[in-house]
């Protein structure tokens, strides 16, 4: 019995150390990416703009249809639920207040973050994991091409650029969906809806949402890359780490969201 407790303790200790090591790896990768983005040109090893643009297409443009569909649905859902619950107080007209704030500050960044984590975070982990197994990462190293510069930095740039853009788009679509339903249900005109929205939603709220989304983009990239580099043992290993990367990035996004909201509402 005592031995078993000891075993558990040891295992817990090991995974705690491994977790901290992963944090460290994330910090190192982030620092190295920034280093290559700034210094790369001077060392004749620039981060390729065309690679970053190709990643932007993949991360951003190709995600637009799914993000539009999800955002429209969620916008309508928010309007339905908002009107339903406010009807208890006879305050249906106030639905715009709730929706405007929550979409721009929370739902836009969160839904975009989760979708990007599922789409891009997982593909990043799978791509890097496969490259590791097929020795493509080694091949880069022995060619004198730094893998962080060649793979991680473009991915990071594309995420930092595209996740806020997608978030902005998602918020607009959500508000459109909600407005459309409110128009049908409460007979509010589009002009009146937009009027109320601009009255309620301040530019600070928009920045709050976009700022968060930049953070989510960085988190998703680092989690994807770390899980990719930890892949071992063939195709099964790639699958395992891909799943792990999605789960961890979604958790990281939600926890960060809470912390960000707490800090931002204090000041």
């Amino acid at each position, binding site marked *: 019995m005592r031995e078993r407790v000891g075993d558990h303790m040891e295992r817990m200790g090991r995974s705690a150390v491994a977790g901290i090591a992963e944090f460290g790896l994330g910090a190192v990768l982030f620092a190295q990416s920034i280093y290559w983005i700034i210094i790369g040109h001077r060392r004749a090893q620039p981060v390729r703009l065309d690679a970053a643009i190709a990643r932007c297409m993949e991360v951003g443009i190709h995600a637009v249809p799914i993000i539009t569909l999800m955002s429209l649905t969620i916008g309508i859902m928010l309007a339905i639920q908002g009107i339903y619950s406010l009807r208890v107080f006879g305050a249906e007209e106030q639905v715009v207040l709730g929706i405007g704030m929550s979409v721009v500050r929370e739902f836009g960044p969160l839904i975009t973050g989760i979708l990007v984590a599922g789409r891009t975070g997982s593909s990043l982990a799978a791509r890097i994991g*496969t490259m590791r197994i097929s020795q493509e990462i080694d091949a880069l190293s022995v060619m*004198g091409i730094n893998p962080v510069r060649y793979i991680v930095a473009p991915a990071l740039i594309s995420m930092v650029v595209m996740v806020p853009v997608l978030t902005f788009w998602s918020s607009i679509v959500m508000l459109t969906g909600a407005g459309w339903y409110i128009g049908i249900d409460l007979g509010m005109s589009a002009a009146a809806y937009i009027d109320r929205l601009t009255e309620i939603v301040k530019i600070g709220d928009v920045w709050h949402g976009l700022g968060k989304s930049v953070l989510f983009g960085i988190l998703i990239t680092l989690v994807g890359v770390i899980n990719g580099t930890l892949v071992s043992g063939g195709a099964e290993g790639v699958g395992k780490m891909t799943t792990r990367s999605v789960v961890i990035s979604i958790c990281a996004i939600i926890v960060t969201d809470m912390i960000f909201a707490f800090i931002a509402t204090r000041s």
Partner: protein
Amino acid sequence: MNQPALNRMPSDAEVVATPAVIEVRDLITHYGTRKILHGINLDIRQGEIMVIMGGSGSGKSTLLNALLGLLRPTSGAVRILSQDLNAISDVERTKLRQKMGVAFQGGALFSSMNVLENIMLPLREHTRLDRSTMQIMARMKMQVVNLAGFERLMPAELSGGMIKRAALARAIVMDPRILFCDEPSAGLDPVVSSAIDDLILSLRDAMGMSIVVVTHELESAFKIADRICVLDKGHILTIGTVDEVRNSKNERIQNLLNRRTEAEILDPDEYLKRLTAAGA
């Protein structure tokens, strides 16, 4: 194909006169707590083909990774073209690596690029040539490895032998001083494998490269090697010419050459112990 000129052995005088391009001194590496290489000493000379041979678990892949600088040794030194791989700065190492070409076992071609782009990649990253010049240079190397006409194919569309050829073309595109080949004939049928061997020989003769080949295929080792280094359990059993190795009296070498299984590997206790040691 009978071309004695390709297989010509350097004379003794030539061997002594040619300087070493790779010097390995007392190289010790660990994987976790397990010792993999137990003090390797090895010189690889200008223009020779050195075959590093050994069974599974002999440490030959570890030695290759240490030579490539992918693995930091616990102690000892790897000097490539007189520069200590683990003591020089990143910038110097990047420069040094442009003088080394590596053809990996599975090719390690980038799956998102076609063959031509794969071969052009080192040029694109390390030179300031314009695109058409790079394309011409890459096509020339494709000609050398008999892959002309396959520029636009993706790696997934290539056969095993073609992947090895493409990997070789990418490895030599910067005209390296030293070429490393990891298991060049693994997974190929005898005919294709023999063609790859001929290709390696012709590369040495045409471009004067020093070539390090890691393999467990005896036939191909005997065909291409100037010298063979036999590894076993992290120790060098012998370094010598093909004839010296073939006629060695050493029992372990003869076991390897004659594919005799060793009794102790089949002992389950020993095997379990190895497994747990590997997991630690």
